[in-house]
């Protein structure tokens, strides 16, 4: 399974490779692959992949828990960075090919069109998470790192709101992606409920164990803590 991560990287590069090819074809033969409105087509292509990949990043821990495929967790950072990559391409295609690099126009959209404001907020979060995704930052931020990276749920929720707001009709896709997100959240909740229950059981049983241990060897309080805390 050593080949898993490079294989996944290869797959995740395909949508970008297709876009590169399509842009090249667009230069050679206008309208060939991207149609009559190529800027719009690119924005939609990257937007969809951004959402798919960020959901995949969220799915990884669930997949690991449900299938026991431990290796997959080693790819999580990479998948997260791919999500940021596609979101950034989405943003770039919008700024370059729909707004024609007019900062005034981008600014007007950001302030007047809430679906764009919300999308941009999601991108900012992914930017912050990507920038702090290294081991160095993990060490520097300690416990704060975990809390910071829980913002990924906010980012995905915002991306979904973005998609709901820009959908005029034909809700099939946005319903599907929302359902995937809901499923992943439910899986986490059920696990947390499960682990809370087992933690409770574990803590009471370990307290009992500690009690009996202290009764037997009159162990000190610090030992009790070490019995309860590993988790």
């Amino acid at each position, binding site marked *: 399974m050593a080949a898993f991560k490079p294989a996944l990287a290869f797959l995740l590069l395909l949508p970008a490779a297709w876009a590169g090819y399509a*842009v090249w074809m*667009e*230069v050679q033969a*206008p*309208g060939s692959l*991207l*149609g*009559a*409105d*190529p*800027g*719009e087509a*690119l924005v939609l292509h990257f937007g969809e992949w951004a959402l798919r990949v960020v959901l995949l990043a969220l799915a990884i821990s669930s997949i690991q828990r449900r299938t026991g495929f431990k290796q997959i967790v080693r790819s999580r950072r990479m998948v997260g960075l791919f999500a940021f990559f596609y979101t950034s391409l989405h943003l770039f295609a919008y700024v*370059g*090919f*729909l707004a*024609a690099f007019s900062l005034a*126009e981008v600014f*007007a*959209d950001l302030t*007047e*069109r809430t*679906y764009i404001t919300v999308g941009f907020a999601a991108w900012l979060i992914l930017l912050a998470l990507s920038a702090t995704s290294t081991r160095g930052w993990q060490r520097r931020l300690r416990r704060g790192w975990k809390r910071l990276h829980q913002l990924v749920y906010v980012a995905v929720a915002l991306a979904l709101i973005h998609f709901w707001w*820009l959908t*005029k*009709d*034909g*809700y*099939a896709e946005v*319903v599907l992606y929302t359902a995937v997100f809901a499923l992943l959240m439910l899986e986490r909740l059920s696990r947390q409920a499960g682990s809370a229950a087992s933690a409770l059981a574990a803590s009471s049983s370990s307290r009992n164990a500690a009690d009996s241990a202290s009764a037997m060897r009159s162990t000190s309080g610090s030992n009790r803590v070490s019995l309860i805390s590993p988790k």
Partner: protein
Amino acid sequence: MLIKKPEKIPSTEITSESAYLNRRSFGKLLAAGAAMAAFPARAAVPVDELTPEEIVTGYNNFYEFGMDKSDPAEYAHEMTTEPWKVRVTGEAAKTGEFDLEDILRGLEVEERVYRLRCVEAWSMVVPWMGVPLKKVLDQFQPNGNAKYVAFETLKRPSEMRGQRSFFSSIDWPYVEGLRMDEAYHPLTLMVTGVYGKPLPNQNGAPWRLMVPWKYGFKSGKSIVRIHFTRRQPKTTWNLLAPNEYGFYGNVNPNVDHPRWSQATERRLPSSLFNQNRRDTLMFNGYAEEVASLYSGMDLARYY
């Protein structure tokens, strides 16, 4: 090549398709430069060139067949258009069911080159063929109570896959409508053909409305019912999102849509590095002909 100032002669300004197709060649650029030097006063008004046929018939919004722009071209062939009955109802002397053939019999088909501006901020220039709506409506002798006329698109889920979709929130059939004076305006057309051929299904066969100074969603396709009414009809997009789509739907660069700025448009085909952007014109460039219909109205309120 006949170049006329767009706002002046909207319905007859015609550029040949081959002239369009050569546009990107270097020689053509030089020629355009020379033309601009020769007519400096006109340089500010971009020339309207015909949108190529394959884009007019391949890039469509017709949600009855799906959400993607390519869906109508792919699936609209599933719709049967013969025979085609039209039901006429409401405030008129002659109501009932008519064969489209009978309605159109004896009417002269004219070619009209119109700009088409979609509310999504893209646009085309299309050589339609059709008959003035006035000549169609006159046959039914609408009475004095007829203040509005509504147009219903075919509802036939067995042949229109978009209507079978569980995920659509549109209450089919698609309904659009006009005030009677708008309907009787000489620019308002019932289209039966495009590019010299019968109208393809994806463009709204066998006949569709075309109101060139309004956003495209106002011009219903594949019309099966004409209803004359005293009250303003409830129209599909207005029902779905009243703060986004008004009853009027007049092209207006000064009133933004919540989703799109309406100040400019991408004239298709657009390209990545030259989007073919141009300023959107008031009433899509037909202000001289139609502005008087709305004198005294607050167009920011009645959008």
